[in-house]
């Protein structure tokens, strides 16, 4: 295999505390060297990265690729193309497909389709319970052997506390995290948006913060009880952030995500019944958004994850109550974070990239997210000053459901490299 030399970019590798103009040499699918002064090997292709940022390939531990069963929304091929277009080289696929990913054969299918698409790396996440039914544990061991990196019933909570305890304990056997969608259904009551003055004005059923907080509290206590690894998905509330902060201080093994939309939007985005702003957990109040930002800044929240949730146009073109939850995120995440988190002064560029690379990789135990010698040759090269505006019709995803249409953003991926090969090159 030919080598690839990325020359003259600002190389930021948060995992090794590196932030300097340097060259990156990739060969045989691995990072060979980062530095300067080494010559160009004869067989190397050269990429000029002057003025660009070179960082480990971005990692998104929370995406819905919809295959099998939802191919009208997304496929593994289209979702991973959207991923690399957005700078992501690794994605973790949620199991709430139809049928769900709840056995080793299904895990193997997702992995195989990911390899066949040959874009971003796809790590399947298996279901916690058979059929996502919330009653019986799936075969964690068999699924891990087939390639699952974690388990979750994402999209719905594990309402039975006893089952969640068993999941956290059993997952220790295989040293995988249990990823939790924290929601008490009896409190969210089929709500459609955040509970507050906006839901009152629009006459929509509200989902109170407590629906999320009560479940986060329960799962943190169960993580403490069991010693299991808990990964809390899409944290959206101020109390949720605070409880995770305290749990980490107390030594509980917990990691957590923030989504780009909970970092940038509030419940006001739902005004005029915009179904593209309908997601679960819902967009919250400004104080919650600020707490999520603070949690991301101080490391309480380990990673940024998009919760990329494609839905077909027809499904969102409905009365608000009838439209499904979720928005696409892979192709807007980097620009949103650079513009509204980094440029807004909430995190420095290296810290923001940490939350997009080594942070998520560590949370799910993935061999990814760094440019250290010997690491997989997954690299994102992006232009931090490229100005563009979000045009859903240009998405590589099969779906267009985004509340960010028309937003002007600064910064976008130019070259995305997986295993030493450029799978996305916007210069072409």
């Amino acid at each position, binding site marked *: 295999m030919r080598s690839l030399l990325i020359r003259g970019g600002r190389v930021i590798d948060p995992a090794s505390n590196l932030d300097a103009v340097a060259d990156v040499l990739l060969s045989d699918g691995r990072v060979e060297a980062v530095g300067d002064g080494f010559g160009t090997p004869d067989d190397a292709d050269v990429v000029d990265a002057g003025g660009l940022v070179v960082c480990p390939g971005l990692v998104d531990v929370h995406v819905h690729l919809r295959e099998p069963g939802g191919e009208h929304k997304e496929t593994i091929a289209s979702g991973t193309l959207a991923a690399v277009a957005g700078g992501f080289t690794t994605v973790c696929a949620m199991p709430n497909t139809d049928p769900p990913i709840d056995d080793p054969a299904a895990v193997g299918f997702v992995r195989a389709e990911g390899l066949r698409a040959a874009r971003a790396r796809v790590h399947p996440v298996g279901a916690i319970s058979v059929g996502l039914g919330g009653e019986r544990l799936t075969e964690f061991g068999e699924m891990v052997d087939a390639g699952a990196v974690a388990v979750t019933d994402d999209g719905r909570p594990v309402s039975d506390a006893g089952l969640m305890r068993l999941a956290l304990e059993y997952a220790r056997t295989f040293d995988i995290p249990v990823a939790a969608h924290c929601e008490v259904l009896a409190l969210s009551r089929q709500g459609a948006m955040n*509970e*507050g*003055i906006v*839901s*009152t*004005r*629009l*006459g*929509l*059923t*509200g989902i*109170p913060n407590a629906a999320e907080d009560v479940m986060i509290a329960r799962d943190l206590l169960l993580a403490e009880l069991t010693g299991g690894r808990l990964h809390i998905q899409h944290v959206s509330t101020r109390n949720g952030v605070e409880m995770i902060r305290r749990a980490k201080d107390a030594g509980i093994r917990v990691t957590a995500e923030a989504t780009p939309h909970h970092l940038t939007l509030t419940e006001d985005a739902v005004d*005029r*019944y915009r179904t593209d702003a309908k997601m679960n957990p819902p967009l919250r109040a400004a104080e919650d958004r600020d707490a999520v930002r603070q949690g991301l800044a101080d490391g309480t929240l380990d990673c940024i994850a998009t919760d990329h949730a494609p839905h077909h146009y*027809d499904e969102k*073109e*409905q*009365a*608000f*109550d*009838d*439209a499904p939850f979720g928005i696409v995120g892979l192709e807007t995440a980097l620009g949103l974070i650079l513009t509204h988190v980094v440029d807004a002064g909430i995190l420095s560029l290296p810290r923001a990239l940490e939350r997009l690379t080594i942070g998520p990789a560590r949370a799910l135990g993935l061999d990814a997210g760094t440019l250290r010698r010997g690491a997989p040759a997954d690299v994102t090269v992006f232009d931090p000053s490229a100005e563009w505006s979000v045009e859903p019709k240009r998405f590589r995803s099969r779906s267009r459901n985004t509340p960010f249409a028309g937003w002007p953003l600064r910064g976008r991926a130019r070259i995305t490299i997986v295993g030493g090969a450029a799978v996305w090159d916007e210069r072409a």
Partner: protein
Amino acid sequence: MTAPRLALGKDLVGLETLDAAQIRSILDTAEPFKEISERAIKKVPVLRGKTIVNLFFEASTRTRISFEFAEKRLSADTVNIQSTGSSVSKGETLVDTARNLEAMRIDMVVIRHGSSGAASFLAERIPSNVINAGDGRHEHPTQALLDMLTIRDALGRLEGVKVCIVGDVLHSRVARSNIWGLTKMGAEVAVCGPRTLMPAGIEDMGVRVFPRVEEAIEWADVLNVLRLQLERMQGGYVPTLREYNRVFGISNERLIAAGRNLLVLHPGPMNRGVEIDSDVADGEHSVILKQVTNGVAVRMAVLYLLAGGEPEKAEAAKGGAHA
């Protein structure tokens, strides 16, 4: 010809987006239309040649009939579509129905739908005028307009009048439209009911909250008593209807204790003996049947104005000239 038109806009989706002048002009326009329903021949040619579809995705008797009378008394051609179904099929029907209506070039649509936002969803997708006859828990503007007209008839004004909305505010589109309309018209508005049936942040809509109905009665000039849907008890919002009646029911004893002449409204249909006792509903405080009569006049006014009629010409229009 340059007289300023009332800028109601294309649609009447809710009162949140109207201002006091627009609301006042609807109420003023309703005044001359009241008389048409008192005639032996209850028909004027104001909307002759206009086609109106009454699109009801939710069961309704009185609102639909009230609209239909208003339309027929203004000589419009009307079609009723009644359709109920599951949540998902409702959604699918809505977008396709919108396209079909658009293709048939109808002039106006009156829509009742179980989902909040359904009326604006339709309004944004078709060129016809859309009138919201109730969407989920969002708004029911013509109900609030007829409530306000009835209060104004009885008390001669809205400004400074103290109106308390009693009951299930959480699930009530009537409450939301009344709160918007009344506050814009300068009335003082309060709500009263069990805390389980009060929406989050209701105080931010500019209303006071009375936990106990005795305090509300003490304060108010007008009580607008909401229907307690019987399924609220199954939902656990109130333990029993008996207790609801005992704690929040409007009874003659409670009104007498206030020692003042309160006006009692109810949007109907009533659960006698639950939120309102029969002796109140049928008694001297009640203006419930006047609300029904005013409903037709208010809906005529809205139809007339959305069709391009001018408020100051309503009197002349009903004499025979076209709007």
